[in-house]
């Protein structure tokens, strides 16, 4: 018995999706290494550079995890960027004008995310409307509501809300990897609460996707909704839940995003939805659904972050370069996915 199991294991060929994930990870490593070689003198090799990429993308990680869940069902949610902007605006406005406490505002933001997701999920799952159209409506609505709340540029300072300010400036120092600054004082590398939240979200979603009925239903629905229904899964409910999850994760991401920027404006987080989609795709999630996981998505976000960090560190490159590089990467990964799919077909 154990022998046959062994031979089975030996025969086991590597899954093409695993290969794609490995390529993504390898690409991140190469990119980062390239950054280290080119800009080592500018501090790129410091652990802090990596942690800064995580810090500034903590919100995006949460949002992209939600996006991945929706994309697994074969759907899409382009409202997430606007929802983040609305969350930030609500947080800033609520704390400065209504003088509500930070926990209350955060709960409010999460509740709004829940309702937002319920409406979108209902439209997609039960009314069978195209997810692109539904979430486009959601995108315009959320962006519009942001402006309704306030068109001002708001910032959250310690005077506005001490608690939120404390959360934002909360730092966890690593016990190693310190680098002396100009004055010779050794600064230990640190990360903030946003990173903690993002990593918790990542782990929870990873486990959820792998070990719960709901998680596996997402894959089944994305693989073939008709088959999933035939096998007795509730497709509509699964879709509804996916959009609720995405909007709630987006709201959590919005809070992280707000803690990072400590400000709010109408034009904030424009294009964040596309970054989230790009990260998922680069991380191996198929737009057609059924394939992908959040580990890939994390590396998708990190690759994006690394490109931005390289361009920033260089200082001379135009700020449009990250877009062009992301476009190139997207093409690369989509072509790769297609080739793998074609190879698979041919093998049959």
């Amino acid at each position: 018995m154990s022998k046959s199991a062994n031979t089975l294991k030996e025969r086991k060929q590597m899954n093409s999706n695993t290969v794609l994930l490995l390529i993504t990870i390898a690409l991140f490593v190469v990119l980062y290494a390239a950054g280290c070689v080119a800009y080592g003198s500018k501090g790129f090799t410091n652990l802090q550079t990596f942690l800064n990429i995580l810090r500034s993308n903590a919100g995006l990680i949460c949002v992209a995890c939600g996006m991945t869940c929706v994309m697994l069902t074969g759907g899409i949610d382009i409202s997430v960027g606007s929802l983040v902007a609305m969350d930030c605006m609500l947080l800033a406005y609520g704390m400065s004008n209504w003088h509500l406490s930070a926990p209350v505002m955060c709960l409010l933001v999460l509740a709004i995310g829940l309702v937002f997701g319920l409406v979108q999920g209902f439209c997609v799952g039960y009314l069978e409307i195209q997810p692109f159209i539904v979430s486009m409506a959601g995108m315009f609505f959320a962006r519009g509501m942001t402006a309704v709340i306030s068109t001002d540029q708001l910032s959250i300072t310690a005077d506005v809300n001490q608690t939120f300010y404390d959360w934002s400036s909360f730092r966890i120092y690593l016990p190693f990897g310190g680098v002396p600054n100009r004055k010779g004082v050794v600064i230990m590398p640190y990360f903030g609460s946003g990173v903690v939240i993002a990593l918790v979200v990542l782990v929870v979603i990873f486990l959820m996707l792998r070990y719960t009925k709901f998680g596996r239903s997402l894959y089944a629905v994305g693989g073939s909704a008709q088959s999933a229904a035939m096998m007795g899964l509730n497709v509509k409910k699964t879709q509804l839940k996916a959009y609720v999850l995405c909007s709630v994760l987006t709201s959590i991401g919005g809070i992280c995003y707000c803690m990072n920027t400590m400000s709010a404006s109408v034009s904030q987080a424009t294009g964040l939805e596309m970054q989230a989609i790009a990260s998922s795709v680069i991380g191996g999630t198929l737009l057609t659904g059924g394939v992908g996981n959040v580990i890939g998505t994390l590396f998708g976000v990190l690759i994006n972050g690394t490109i931005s960090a390289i361009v920033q560190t260089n200082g001379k490159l135009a700020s449009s370069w990250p877009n062009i590089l992301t476009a190139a990467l997207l093409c690369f990964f989509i072509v790769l996915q297609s080739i793998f799919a074609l190879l698979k077909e041919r093998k049959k």
Partner: protein
Amino acid sequence: MEDNVVLTMRGICMTFPGVKALDNVDFTLRKGEIHALMGENGAGKSTLIKCLTGINDFEAGEIHVDGVEGKVKNHSTLDAQNVGISTVYQEVNLCPNLSVAENLFIGREPMTPFHTIDRRTMIRKADELTKRLDIRVDVTQNLENYSLAIQQMIAIARAVDTNCKVLILDEPTSSLDDSEVEKLFRMMTSLKEQGVGIIFVTHFLEQVYAVCDRITVLRNGTLVGEYPIADLPRVKLVAAMMGKDFDDLADIRPEGFTSHADAEMVIDAKGLSHKGTIKPFDIELHRGEVIGLTGLLGSGRSELARAIYGADKAQTGTLKVKGKEVKINHPIDAIHLGMGMLPDDRKAEGIIGDLSVRENIILALQARMGMFKQMSRAKQEEIADEYIKVLQIKTASRETPISQLSGGNQQKAILGRWLATDPDFLILDEPTRGIDIGTKTEIQKLIIQLAGEGKSVMFISSEIEEMLRTCNRMAVLRDGAKVGELDGELTQERVMSAIAGGAKE
């Protein structure tokens, strides 16, 4: 209920708007038997299955399942599963992106005390299940890594693992090759020995005689009969499926059985094939000849024609058109060579509903001229008018959207489309299906007339009578292969026994 009967259906009636789909149909399935459900298109096989599995609601009649008190009326496939009726369809209804184990257990996964999926137990159980059914797979691999046959078997494994007494296999073999079918049959036999009652729906006669114990035949929504396999030789089965109702059309066949063997060879195909649809075949067609393709539904009639026309690119063999060897990759190549094809599904492949009759008629001609040589409006109107007149298309005007025409007139308009290109070789796939008898006769006359003008026609029809009237020669197909040709005196008996195969004339 007699012993060892697992399922009885009595007096099932079901009406679709305007059509009586099932009329008082009975069906009995016994424990440990493989029972073929046979019938041509529209006979009511799928409807009967759907009534059983809860997809359709039947109006009258009752269903009893062994071990279930009272009448059974299912409202969903899940209901059906709960009383022990599982179905496996032609298309595998599993998720290719999940592992074999997950496909076997999704929706009913073993759980750990923490309400998470117990993957280890799931894999162990899946391993046991596949071993028990002798399916050799690594259950942790994704389903898409396995062949269709294996996927089909895994679908069956899932079905039988949910306490299944009645297993319905709805054309499970259509997309499998011979060796895969063999594997599936072994599995069916072993399930039968375990006492499962299997309903086997298929078009393939060979397969019925290879595994089945009993046959129930339906025709036009009514029960023809239930027969033990030994009592129903092939010819009788074909006769039972097709019926022997002769429609009383005038004999329009003008000439005797003239041979065209001396005429110019228009089509000469050698060893053409398309993987999965039609096995290599040879076919010759002379000028002025009408050749009929006959066989049961799914025997490869349309597929043969599609392979010649380039609708399914032929993967092997050579094709000579008027003596010149040609390569047809796409239908447009065929059009340039003077071919035309009237597809059998005119809704999906033929008419363009929103365009007018005129636009539909000139479509193929315009396509042959190319996109940039626009035909003048006057010319278009002239051509349209001509064919509306010649074919007697009943339309309010030539600018009426074609979707407003009756089926028969739509068919005539598409025929007009191909005639406008003045083809040397015309493929007509079921040109008379679903149209009234009068129009049928007109189309049959037209085919003979076209042949008289020196065109060659390949004519596909399910109605043997109509083929007998129009064809000079008939090619017989069975189970995706051309198995023979008939010429000389064509009679219904000869054709039927050729379709059935394996029987002496």
